[in-house]
C-alpha cells in the first residue's frame, strides 16, 4: 500500500462513471442494494453473497463481481486474488465453451490507460493463454490485436444488429479466404480463432434466445395465475 494514490473516492457516484451496456445492469443491480457510491461498494461486506443470490444472468453477475474487484484493485490497491483470471470472465472469458471479451468494460470504467490494460491483461492471463495468444514475435494473434479488438467493441457498441445473412456472408468470406491463402498459416490460425469465437458468440446468442422464450412463457403463466387469483 506504499504507493497508494490518495484518491478521494468516497462520494464518487458509480452512476457518474462511464458505463457500458452490460454494466448498466450491474449499476441497476447495485442501486437496488442501495450501493450508489464507490465507498458503498467497498463497505458492503455481504455484496458477493447478494450477487450470487440475485436473479441475473451469469454474465451480469460476473460483471458485478469484476466491477468490485477492479474497483478495489484500482482505488484501494488491493492485490488481485489468483482466482481472478481470464478464465473467470474478467476480460477474456472461457466458460462452458463460450468465449468473450466482454468484461474489458470494467477496466475502462475505472479509467485504466492502455498501458495499464496491457499490464492487467498480462497479469490475468494464465500461462496457457499466454502461450496461446502472446505470440507477437511470430506474427500470430498478438496482444495488441486482442486489446484493439475488445476496445473496438466498446468504441462501436451502437452499431446495427447482426442478422443471419451477415453471419453467413462472413463465414463464406472466411472459407473462400482460407482456400485462396493456404500459405498464410499464421493468418489462418487467426481466422480459425475468430471463426471459433464467432461460432461461440452465435451459440451464446441462441442460448439467450431460448432463455428469453422460457422467461416470457414463465411471465405469462404468472400473469395468468395472478388474473385467476384476483377474479
Amino acid at each position, binding site marked *: 500500500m506504499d504507493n497508494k494514490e490518495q484518491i478521494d473516492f468516497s462520494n464518487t457516484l458509480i452512476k457518474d462513471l462511464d458505463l457500458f451496456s452490460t454494466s448498466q445492469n450491474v449499476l441497476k443491480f447495485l442501486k437496488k442494494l442501495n450501493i450508489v457510491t464507490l465507498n458503498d461498494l467497498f463497505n458492503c461486506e455481504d455484496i458477493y453473497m447478494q450477487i450470487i443470490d440475485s436473479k441475473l444472468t451469469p454474465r*451480469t453477475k460476473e460483471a458485478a463481481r469484476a466491477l468490485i474487484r477492479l474497483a478495489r484493485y484500482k482505488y484501494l490497491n488491493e492485490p488481485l486474488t489468483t482466482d481472478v483470471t481470464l478464465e473467470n470472465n474478467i476480460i477474456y472469458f472461457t466458460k462452458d465453451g463460450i468465449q468473450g471479451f466482454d468484461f474489458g468494460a470494467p477496466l475502462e470504467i475505472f479509467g485504466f490507460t492502455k498501458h495499464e490494460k496491457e499490464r492487467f491483461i498480462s497479469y490475468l492471463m494464465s500461462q496457457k493463454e499466454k502461450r496461446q495468444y502472446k505470440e507477437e514475435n511470430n506474427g500470430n494473434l498478438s496482444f495488441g490485436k486482442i486489446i484493439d479488438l475488445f476496445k473496438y467493441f466498446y468504441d462501436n457498441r451502437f452499431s446495427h444488429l447482426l442478422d443471419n445473412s451477415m453471419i453467413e456472408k462472413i463465414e463464406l468470406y472466411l472459407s473462400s479466404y482460407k482456400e485462396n491463402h493456404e500459405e498464410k498459416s499464421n*493468418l489462418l490460425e487467426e481466422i480459425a480463432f475468430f471463426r471459433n469465437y464467432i461460432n461461440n458468440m452465435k451459440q451464446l446468442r441462441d442460448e439467450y434466445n431460448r432463455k428469453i422464450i422460457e422467461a416470457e412463457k414463465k411471465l405469462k403463466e404468472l400473469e395468468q395465475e395472478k388474473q385467476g387469483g384476483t377474479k
Partner: protein
Amino acid sequence: MKDQELTKEIKEVINKLNKDIIEKELLLDSLYEKIDIAENTNLEDED
C-alpha cells in the same frame, strides 16, 4: 489490403454479434426482474 478488409469484416461481425448478445442479455435481465416482481406479487396475494 486484403488482410485489412478481412480484419474489418471480422470486427464488424463480432461487434454486431456482441451488441446483439448484450441486448438480449438486457432483455433477459429485465424479464427475470419482472418474473421476480410477479412471483412476489402473487405470494403477497396468497397471504
